[in-house]
């Protein structure tokens, strides 16, 4: 493969430009503030670029998203080994961002960030990316029943974490209340 005009590079760059916003959102949702999401995306994209000839670039969105999810989870596994007790990070927000953001959304986001990594990744892929359970299972190297369990538990944990807030603000009757 001589350098010059490699059509894969062009396809690759176009795909990154097209999906960059969603990739960054996925990375953010999974790593929270435990790592820079830009670094996650950058690393994932570079890894993919190194092996670009192995993949079919006609539908690059799925490939890129899968790479970002895996890189984010890899980074979190690595970080956990180094940073003990970093299980409940708080999002540091600028005052302006806090003012502008809907409080409920902010609380939900905070609750999501406290979920176990795989729960969070599965939930993002399910609700934000609208992937099927089978696709999520393939992305996360897990079985479909495992993915269903993760998503189910993630939803219930978020509800439990926000039960007080919901009751106080009458946002919706929590289960069993």
């Amino acid at each position, binding site marked *: 493969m001589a350098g010059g005009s490699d059509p894969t590079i062009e396809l*690759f760059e176009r795909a990154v430009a097209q999906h960059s916003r969603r990739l960054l959102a996925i990375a953010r949702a999974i790593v929270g503030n435990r790592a820079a999401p830009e670094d996650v995306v950058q690393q994932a994209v570079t890894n993919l670029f190194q092996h670009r000839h192995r993949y079919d670039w006609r539908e690059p969105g799925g490939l890129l998203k899968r790479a970002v999810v895996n890189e984010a989870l890899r980074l979190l596994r690595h970080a956990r080994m180094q940073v003990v007790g970093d299980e409940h990070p708080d999002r540091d927000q600028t005052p302006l961002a806090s003012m502008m953001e809907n409080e409920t959304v902010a609380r939900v*986001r905070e609750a999501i960030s406290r979920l176990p990594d795989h729960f969070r990744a599965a939930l993002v892929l399910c609700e934000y990316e609208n992937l099927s359970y089978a696709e999520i299972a393939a992305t996360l190297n897990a079985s479909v029943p495992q993915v269903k369990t993760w998503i189910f538990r993630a939803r219930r944990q978020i509800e439990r974490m926000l039960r007080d807030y919901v009751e106080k603000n009458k946002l919706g009757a929590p289960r069993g209340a």
Partner: protein
Amino acid sequence: MSLSDHELELLDRYLDGDLSEAELVGLEARLKSDVTMSSELSRLREWRAVRVEAFASLEPGELESQRLQWYVRGALQQHRQAARPVLGRATVWMRGLTRVAAVLVLGFAVGYIYRGGVAGPGAVTEATSGATVAGSPARRGLDLTADGPPLLVPDSRHIAGIGAGSITPVAVPLGQPPAFEVTLTDASGKLITRQRFATLAEAQQFANDFHRLRQKQLQLRSGGVRLIGDDF
């Protein structure tokens, strides 16, 4: 009355679009008659909408997106540049080594001939003589197939001026194009080189070039210049 985990899972799967046709029909019928179930579905739907909004709120703005693309482009560029010099370096090294090897081989060959004391000017002029049958002593120095059909093997002859050099027609099966082999040996009979050519003219050219090289080396040496091959 609260719902069981199984019922909640069913509602989750309904919202995720994972129910089979039969499950879907069953659930929709139940939703019409079961108020608890339908209000729970509304609640789950609401929560889901908030979560999707939370995820969407993580999307970067245009500026951030541009910055990310810039980062990625930079990383890819770096990656490509990092790959390029490795190849470039390898090529330069390979070229250098090839040149050194070529000079050494040439010097060695010239020096070897010179030390062999092959004397006298002159050039290769002819190379053929009568033919004998395969298996005769004329086969010495030639690479022939041992069990082939009878081959025509013309005898070799020493070439004037080069001492132990000869051009020998190579034995080839009948009907095949001819080949000629130049064999150069030093004064003690040690083989210096053996090259095969398709035509007699090419073989002569090679032998003449070799001879000229040897003469050049003689001249250089008489002028006090030492060649690499002299030390071998």
